[in-house]
């Protein structure tokens, strides 16, 4: 259950009076949204108020981007309400509480890096000193005079994500911030987002389930435009709990187990059985080199 959230995250109650300013969050009630009259999201309700990363998962077409665009006030809901820090998303002042990052760069044509950031600083009513700070923070100071179109994918993503650091806000809506990035740049961006999540509410969509598990505290899973799961990721239990055992040569042989690559697979009823298994194997003289969970509970959300 989400701390600070209503009893059922799928049936949110209004936030208590006076609580909005202290804990800025998102409350969505029975939301329907889409494009040109075609509904993509239907009956979506949830409430998030705890500073954390909330990973939004779903197959292509499940409605992730539509959800982000609606929460950002870009799309007007067909039904239901979206409240940011206790205020309707329709109120212009609400937009000053959130940052939005699309999977599209959104950097205007014909601008150099520093010009592009100044453009967004102007839109956000930030100053030039904020641009200088962000250029250093994202380590793109050396690119400041380069045209955006000339940059590599990783450099473009850095510049694109830089705009959400121009001003501190309460809520961050990040739609696939690490898509199409090499692992190094993706890891750097994840670190930046992790830094944010200590104080902010971060909604983060990704197709990378391992990334989602690595950084996410909660998961919101969408399927066919409906929210079908909202839970703490560490509380998710896969239907089959399998650990992989990697052994060093020279020890006793393992019992006959299925093998995948270098790992022997052992199915258990849950993680609480792992210490008992290790004790048994060590007692039998098996020289264990590594034990790891072989499945990702998030994978089953896509089944």
């Amino acid at each position, binding site marked *: 259950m989400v701390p600070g959230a209503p009893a059922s995250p799928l049936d949110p109650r209004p936030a208590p009076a006076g609580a909005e300013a202290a804990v800025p969050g998102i409350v969505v009630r029975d939301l329907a949204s889409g494009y040109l009259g075609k509904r993509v999201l239907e009956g979506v309700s949830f409430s998030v108020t705890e500073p954390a990363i909330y990973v939004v998962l779903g197959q292509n077409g499940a409605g992730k981007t539509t959800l982000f665009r609606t929460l950002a*006030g870009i799309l007007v809901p067909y039904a239901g309400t979206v409240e940011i820090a206790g205020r309707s998303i329709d109120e212009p002042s609400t937009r000053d509480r959130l940052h*939005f990052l*699309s999977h599209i760069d*959104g950097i*205007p044509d*014909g601008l150099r890096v520093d010009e592009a950031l100044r453009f967004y600083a102007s839109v*956000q009513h930030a100053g030039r000193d904020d641009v200088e700070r962000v250029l250093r923070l994202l380590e793109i100071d050396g690119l400041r005079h380069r045209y955006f179109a000339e940059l590599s994918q990783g450099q473009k993503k850095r510049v694109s994500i830089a705009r959400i650091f121009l001003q501190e806000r309460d809520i961050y809506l990040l739609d696939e911030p690490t898509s199409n990035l090499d692992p190094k740049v993706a890891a750097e961006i994840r670190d930046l987002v992790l830094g944010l999540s200590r104080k902010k509410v971060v909604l983060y969509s990704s197709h990378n389930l391992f990334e989602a598990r690595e950084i996410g505290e909660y998961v919101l899973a969408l399927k066919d435009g409906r929210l079908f799961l909202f839970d703490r990721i560490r509380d998710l239990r896969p239907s089959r709990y399998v650990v992989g055992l990697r052994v060093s040569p020279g020890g006793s042989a393992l019992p006959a187990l299925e093998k995948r690559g270098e790992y022997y697979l052992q199915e258990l009823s849950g993680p609480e059985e792992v210490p008992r298994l290790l004790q048994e194997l060590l007692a039998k003289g098996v020289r264990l080199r590594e034990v790891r969970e072989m499945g990702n509970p998030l994978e089953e959300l896509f089944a």
Partner: protein
Amino acid sequence: MEAPPRPSSLAAITIRRSIVVGVRYLAIGLFLSVVLTALLLRQARAFEATFPLELPLFAILGSTGGLVLFGNDRAKGVFEYLLAYGVRPRRLFANALLASAVLASIVLATAVAVGIGGFVAGGGHLDVNLVTALVLYSVPMTVASALFAAMVSMIWTAVSSPRAGLGGPAGLAPTLGIGPTILVLVAAETAPRSDYYVITVGAAATILAVVLVLAAASGRLLSRERLLSPM
């Protein structure tokens, strides 16, 4: 600590970017208008009769940068961010219209400066007919036609998939602006002489009114998803 930029600076940035993005259109508009003006200056009577009529055509061509910027920003997802940061759709249209008007004015002002300057320097006398034609035909028709071309093309851009080249809105925008200019000219020429400027000013005012109504209604007529990148 430096003060944050004023909120109105988005319009100024849009104008500056439209000049950068539409620099080729601006250069062609300026070049053609100045060349034609120079040719007309060789014969005073031809200059007086034709100069006011050619001005809107090249100014409309030069103003295409405003539309190009609008189409690019939509395709690149810039509008998505601007909407998220609270910029209203109507302001996006208004800024592009303002940029188109500024671009058209640059061509118009340059051509007028070259034409009138050259005419006077060559010993010509500025008579009332020439000045009246500039004030009551060239200026209003330039502004009205440039804005009409931009507005119609922006709506077209918003309701269609991105199309590059001459078959797309940017390619056909000058024609959309030049069309009304020619029609107004034909109507004025076939009407009694006394009604000439009534027709040109009235037509320009009507076109401007249509543009303003479309701009004001654009936020409601066009759903916001029309402004998102189709990518």
